[in-house]
Structure formats: C-alpha cells, structure tokens
C-alpha cells in the first residue's frame, strides 16, 4: 500500500545529538514504501523556528519531500513573517503551530492572530496533541476557525478516545495516528469519524514507521480504509493528485 507520512522531523535529534538526514529519510521511505513525507526541522520544533524553517526550505521541493513551516506563539510577528515567506510555496504543505513550551498545548488566545494571517494560505494546520488537555485546546481552536483543516498530531496519546469523540463533533479536525499503540485506536477511529478523517504519521526520527504501519495494518477495518489512512486522506487534504512537488 502507498504511504504518505505527514509527521517527520529532519536534523539533529534533541537529547541524543545524532543527525537524522535527508539521506536517512530517503532510505526509510524506500524501505517502507513511503511515497511522500511532510517534514519540519528538529531545530524548528525545539528551539529556533526561523532557522529551522530555513533548513526545511533547503530540503523540500525535490519531488517526494514536502515542507511543514513551524511557528511559535511566543513570537507572533516573526511567525507571521515566516508564514508569508514559506506557505505560498507549493513545496510547503502545512503549518505547525507550537506553544514554545513543551507540555503546554497551543491555546486559542495565543494563536488567533497567527491563524487569521494563515486563512489566505488554505493549508492544513498541524497541532501537537499528546494528551487530553491538548485535544480540548485543539478542539477550541478548530471551532473558532471552521474554514481551516486542523490535524491532531499524536491523536491525544493515551486519550485517543477523547480525540475521536471531539473529532466526531468538530468536522474540521483530522486525526494523525502516531504515538499511542492501542490496538483499538484505528478500528474505533475509523468507525466513528471515518478513515477519510484519519491520516498516517510516523513521528520519525523518534519512532520507527514500522510501529505505526503495524498499528494500522492491525486495525479491524477494510483494506480500502487502511489505504485511505495510509495515503488517501493526505492526498485529498493536501490536494495531491499524484504530481510531484514543483521546484521553486
């Protein structure tokens, strides 16, 4: 089955200090049949989004690797400037908003200005949702901006049932499957919100795609739904019919 991985980071891994390079990613993509990946820079996610986004820009636009611009609610002006710089480019597929403080979810108050500026780009917004409080925060944001598609990265962690319940009511929320490996997650998610609102992510380089792939394959859902999660939802969400990313 074709796979699109929407959750990948490239660069030096925090804590370990080892590099996860474009070459490493390419080999991973070949090994697992990942046809496209949406990547951000580890630097952008951990410390310096401006520098990280510039690193991402240098990697994307080569056909199979697409960019995700990262912004930080602690720096709204700089965030909006980076969005203008990158999100109009076809090689950037998404925006990720971070709170800048690990363990604290992005809140509506903090990101309203950024999202108002983002409306014109019409690209999906990725929000990290490792727990229940982050799910509720994402729901509040999605309700306030119904015209934007929001992806809950990590699907609430162990609170994935809460993520499913929330997404069932808030129709512009999409569930990304990496993180918690509960065997029910895929089955219940697809039965409740539909596979067309679930999307595959691996969380490379922190998790091997084998885990998330095995999780989806283990789900008690039809093969067509698995294919939808692996690639179909992402294709539709990003407007990809099969073409490569154009070079800038």
């Amino acid at each position: 089955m074709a796979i699109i991985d929407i959750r990948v980071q490239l660069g030096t891994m925090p804590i370990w200090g080892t590099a996860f390079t474009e070459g490493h990613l390419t080999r991973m993509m070949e090994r697992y049949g990942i046809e496209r990946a949406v990547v951000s820079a580890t630097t952008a996610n951990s410390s310096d989004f401006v520098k990280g986004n510039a690193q991402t820009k240098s990697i994307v636009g080569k056909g199979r690797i697409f960019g995700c611009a990262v912004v930080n609610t602690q720096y709204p002006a700089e965030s909006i400037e980076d969005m203008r710089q990158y999100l109009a480019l076809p090689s950037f597929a998404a925006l990720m908003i971070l709170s800048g403080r690990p363990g604290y979810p992005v809140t509506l108050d903090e990101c309203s200005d950024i999202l108002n500026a983002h409306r014109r780009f019409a690209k999906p917004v990725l929000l990290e949702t490792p727990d229940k409080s982050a799910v509720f925060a994402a729901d509040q944001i999605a309700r306030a901006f119904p015209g934007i598609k929001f992806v809950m990265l990590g699907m609430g962690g162990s609170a994935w049932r809460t993520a499913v319940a929330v997404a069932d009511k808030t129709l512009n929320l999409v569930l990304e499957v990496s993180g918690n490996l509960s065997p029910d997650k895929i089955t219940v998610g697809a039965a409740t919100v539909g596979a067309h609102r679930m999307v595959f992510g691996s969380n490379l380089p922190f998790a091997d795609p084998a885990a998330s792939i095995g999780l989806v394959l283990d789900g008690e859902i039809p093969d067509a739904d698995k294919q939808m999660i692996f690639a179909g939802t992402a294709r539709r969400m990003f407007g990809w019919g099969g073409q490569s990313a154009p070079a800038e």
Partner: protein
Amino acid sequence: MEIIDANTTFGPSPRITADISIDRLLAAVKRHGVTKSLTLSTVGIFHSHNDGNADTIAQCQGKPELLPVATIDPRGYFGGLKQTSNLISQGFKMFRFFPGEQGWPLDHNVLEDILEEMEDNSVPVMINAGRTGDASALGRIIGGKEHPLILEGVVFETLAEAVSVMKKHSNIYVETHSLLVPGGLRFLVDQVGADRIIFGSDCPRSSLGGALRYIKDSGISDEDMSKVLGGNIKRLLGG
C-alpha cells in the same frame, strides 16, 4: 521462529477505556503466531496483588500458550511469610512490579526486601523503567547480583541510561515494547548484545502487530532476532 511475548496483561482497564480481556489477548496471540505469552491479571496492578495473582493462575489454567506472572505491591507486602517462594511453587514464571502505575518510588525498602527474598531462586523480575532515573536506581538495587532483571518501558529518552546500566551489570536485560526509535534495536545489539534483549508487546493494551513489526523490520540478523523474539526469555525461564 519461535515467538515468546514477555509482556502481556489481561483484565479490567479502569484508567483507559479498552478491551484487554483474556479472549482478546488469546486472539491476538493466535493471529500473530506467538507461541507463548507471559501474562498477568491487571487486578494485581490496580486492586490487590493477592487477588490478581489468584486471577492470573486461574485464567492461565488449561491454556498452555499462557505463562503466569506474579506481581507484588511493596506498599502492601509484609515480609517473613515467604510469599515469593509460595508464588513460585504455584507455577508463576516471572515477577513484575509497577511503580509508575501504582505510584511508589523505586527507592523503597520493601522492594529491596522482596528482591533479597528472591535471591535464592532465578525467577526473572521485570520492572518498568520508563522514567529518567529508574534504570539507574534499579542498577543500584539489583545490579551485580545473579538475579535476572528486565527493564520494561525503556523509551527514546531513557535508552542511554538503560544501556549504561546494562554495561555495568550483566544481570540486567531490556524489554522492547516502548523502544520505537529507528535503529534502536540494532543499537542495543551493538551495545549490549542480542542476548540481553527480550521481546515484549504490552498486548492487548498495545498493538502486538506493531511491536512485532518493529523487531522484524529492524535489520538485525536472523540469529539475533531468534534470541530477541524468544530464545533469551526461554533461557531465563529455564528452557
């Protein structure tokens, strides 16, 4: 290749909505070709180790694919009654401890009492070491002894600590279910050797398929994979 899953549970799931019934476990084990599973009732984690151990023995009876695992909550263990040897004589193959889920620190004198009480036998012990500092504490408590200790729940952030402790203490092993970082298994094989890695899935709380796929796609040799998937735990259990 024989697959023995060293980390499974069954029973009630009070904190997260989940079907982790024994039927679910047995179905997953069958579906993925797992030969044997070391398992225990979650009653022993969330309610009482006495009730849980009784449930484990009862549920494993007549099911040769399940090997019973005992648990003890140090907060409710009063020594001198030779409970550990009684449990071993009942047929329990391993002991597990749940400091994180039960909310007690590894720096706990009763835990040390229990481990000392078990020194006369070689039944393996598995303890969660998911928090930073856990593996180091366990190294100080049980490292250097004959008794095999399996670190469970080691993640990306605690892998370096686990490796350091394992290099110091040859009786310490690591279980795989939380070890999802790419190349993590090959790294462990290089650092501590395939003989010290034990396959576990946390099924049915976690996906058995996902855990198995991580091992099978790791790129380690067939010989090493055979050790990880079953050979090592079989050796620790006495064959």
